[in-house]
């Protein structure tokens, strides 16, 4: 999963942050900052989404348990 995530972050941030004109071999300052922010946003977003999904799952489980409890 880690390799998959890494690949996705790399290609997404590459599309968004690195412009297509390869006039020089160095990453510009703007691109570097953009990459840092892109990576941290991706992680934050992923972490939040996973947590939300997990919480939703838990609530669903609780509800089904409660509804099936008093027979």
């Amino acid at each position, binding site marked *: 999963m880690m*390799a998959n995530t*890494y*690949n996705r*972050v*790399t*290609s997404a*941030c*590459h599309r968004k*942050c*690195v412009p*297509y004109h*390869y*006039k*020089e*071999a*160095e*990453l510009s300052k703007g*691109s*570097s900052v953009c*990459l*840092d922010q892109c*990576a*941290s946003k991706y*992680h934050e977003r992923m972490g939040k989404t996973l947590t939300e999904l997990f919480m939703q799952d838990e609530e669903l489980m609780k509800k089904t348990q409660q509804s099936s409890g008093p027979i």
Partner: protein
Amino acid sequence: RCGALLTLTLGSQTRAHRSPSARYRCRMREPVDKYGRFPFKEFLGTYNRLTESCFLDCVKDFTTREVKPEEVTCSEHCLQKYLKMTQRISMRFQEYHIQQNEALAAKAGLLGQPR
């Protein structure tokens, strides 16, 4: 012999290299990770993505078979940028995971305290 390792995995010329001794000789020089796997597959994936990306961005003149000098410099710059980009993202990844581990450890520490 193992300079031809690329053709090994590209499939068309594997017949000559299927003997166990050749495979053994080739494998001896490959870096191995802690599970004994070879990261060659990863390398090929990166290579393919990089080549496609730089080709799409840099090679625009199809009136000739030759690669123009501008396209050559563009590809070189593209490669350098890509490598620097991946390095930077790896660093951020590692930092993020260290941060996460510290946060988890702190949580575990807090939970363990009231005993």
